[in-house]
């Protein structure tokens, strides 16, 4: 048994009083969870502490909180580990998740934000037509591909810390977009293009993510929502050539061709090209609005006209060759660590590696016999 000090953020919006910190000392073994600590404080010290929980085994996703400023599951965080990430005073801070209104203390309104956004992405399978008489037959590989996004337990930890949502509450967000990939990556779904068009054209859709890695860091289940958002963009732009009104696809295409030509980025071209080219109607107002900055930059000799207009770099032949080979491939070669694991892991557990090796090679299951059913 050891003593742990918990500092819990308390707030009851109905009371009319401001939020405050409340400190409790609990006695538990270090391998017990922060949730057990909160429950002990509630049961023994103060029955009015508001906390939501159910399974206590990192499955139900109810007990999302921030521990020492980082979002996660209270039931999945050991008190010992929490003490290590605590400040110098050795007090473990427990706060409600961010980006969602507080109902009471550690309980946030998941319906108002998280579930609304999940509903936004049509979170069910729209069967591909024609619907087969029996089950859909799909390759094993394609179902493994969506398991990463299926691992989501809807705890809201990624939503809590999303930095785009912090400034743009309308952003569809990491959890819902990971859910969208779960269907866009599913070969049985018949609405891939509509889903992607919808989420590309929405100003608060897939192109509103800044790659800040907060959701990857937050997720207790390894879903890596940001990676799923990047895959949605990849499929929208490359496979369906969706040219969205937010310039998402244009920006990506402009960036890639900029590097193909110049080897390193020539910024002066990137901005106008991202809007469709220097003389594109979209680009003109943008360029005019950035004129004062351009003039200041020229005056301060941050850039020179020569440098802005001329192209001092050209891509080395080796770089051009890489573009030729990789862009010329018929099928995307996308190495996913979540699925493949590392060589080091395989060495550490040879039985698992052997089992994977021995398993049937990925491919279409014999028709009408085996296979995942829808």
């Amino acid at each position, binding site marked *: 048994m050891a003593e742990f000090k918990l500092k819990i953020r308390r707030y009851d919006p109905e009371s009319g009083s401001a939020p405050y910190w409340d400190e409790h000392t609990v006695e538990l073994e270090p391998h017990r969870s922060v949730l057990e600590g909160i429950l002990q404080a509630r049961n023994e010290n103060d029955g009015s502490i508001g906390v939501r929980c159910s399974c206590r085994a990192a499955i139900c996703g109810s007990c999302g909180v921030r521990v020492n400023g980082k979002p996660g599951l209270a039931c999945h965080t050991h008190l010992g580990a929490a003490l290590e990430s605590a400040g110098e005073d050795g007090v473990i801070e427990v706060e409600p998740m961010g980006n969602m209104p507080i109902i009471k203390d550690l309980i946030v309104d998941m319906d108002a934000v998280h579930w609304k956004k999940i509903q936004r992405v049509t979170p069910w399978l729209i069967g591909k037509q024609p619907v087969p008489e029996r089950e859909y037959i799909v390759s094993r590989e394609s179902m493994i591909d969506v398991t990463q996004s299926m691992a989501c337990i809807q705890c809201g930890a990624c939503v809590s810390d999303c*930095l*785009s949502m*912090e*400034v*743009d509450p309308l*952003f569809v967000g990491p959890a819902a977009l990971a859910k969208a990939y779960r269907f866009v990556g599913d070969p049985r779904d018949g609405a891939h293009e509509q889903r992607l068009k919808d989420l590309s054209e929405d*100003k*608060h859709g897939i*192109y*509103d*993510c*800044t*790659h*800040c*890695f*907060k959701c*990857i*860091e937050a997720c207790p289940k390894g879903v890596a929502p940001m990676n799923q958002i*990047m895959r949605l963009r*990849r499929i929208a*732009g*490359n496979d369906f050539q969706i040219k969205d009104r*937010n310039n*998402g696809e244009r*920006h*990506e295409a402009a*960036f*890639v061709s900029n*590097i193909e030509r110049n*080897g*390193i*980025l*020539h*910024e002066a071209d990137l901005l106008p090209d991202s*809007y469709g080219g220097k003389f594109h109607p979209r680009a003109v107002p943008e360029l005019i609005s*950035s004129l004062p*900055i351009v003039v*200041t930059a020229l005056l*301060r*000799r*941050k*850039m020179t006209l020569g*440098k802005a207009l001329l192209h001092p770099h050209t891509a080395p*032949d*080796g*770089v051009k*060759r*890489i*573009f030729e080979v*990789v*862009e010329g*491939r018929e099928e*995307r*070669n*996308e*190495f996913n*660590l979540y699925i*493949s694991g*590392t*060589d080091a892991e395989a060495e550490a557990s040879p039985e698992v590696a052997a089992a994977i090796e021995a398993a049937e090679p990925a491919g279409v299951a014999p028709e009408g016999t085996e296979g995942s059913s829808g």
Partner: protein
Amino acid sequence: MKVAYWPGCVSRGFTAELHGSMAAVAPMLEIELVELDRASCCGAGVIAEHSQELADTLNARTFALAQQEITQGADLMMNICSTCQGAQNECQQRLDASAEYRAQINETLSDEGLEYQDGIINKNFLWVLVEEIGLEKLRSLVRRPLTDLRVGPFYGCYIVRPTDRLDINRAQPRDEYLGQVIETLGGTVIDYAGSHKCCGFPIITMNKEASLEQAGRHLADATDAQADCLVTPCPLCHLNLDLQQPMAAKQVGRELNMPVLHLPQLVGLALGLSPKELGLAHHIVKPTAVIDWSQAVVGGVGGW
């Protein structure tokens, strides 16, 4: 020490003062820079978004070029851009994870006679300062301590997340290094909400309001915390925080005027270089507070 030096793209384009200040500071720190001038853009996450294999191959090529320098005596590869650090690290994680995948990538590189061998050490200048040069040595080189200069750190997402991939842990708190460096140089570290958040730059062409709102909010938070300036190891953050600052100020509806320094500029100031030598005159937001400070410390330095 000798490093295979990857300056990145923006430090040779819109933030040329970064490349220049690194070149000025390196000899004072006894760092010999061997520039990887045939290497290409890291992709900044955008090429990976288009094609993961393309980003992995381009960066494997950069690593292979750096390894050529390392066999000829360089200690490691060094970059001066948080985004390069993170984007290259992400590719390296995949390349190092699987010999089979690495072989596929090396097959493409073989046309040029290059091969990437797993395990390259690639560190941002910030990490080199703390882990290779060491804070003690750095402290001994300070000629003009940043006394009374209130500096807010701004890291850039790519150099602080995800923590496991970037080997950030209690024994190696890379997400606290900027504060450590500011203190070592004699300055005061300003604690404000935005230090580890996103500058918003990646979506400037897609959702300008949200992008500028992020930059503006962090600059305003730093202003409220009474910072004299910010310092960043990321030139892309610098673009949104400095170049776009007039627009960000409009977006958040308040005056900002927060100078943003590149990391080598801050180090250079403390090592005794003048603001002019460090290219501070090229910033959009005039670093008046920093200049005033430097003149108060050493009369006439900088010649403004």
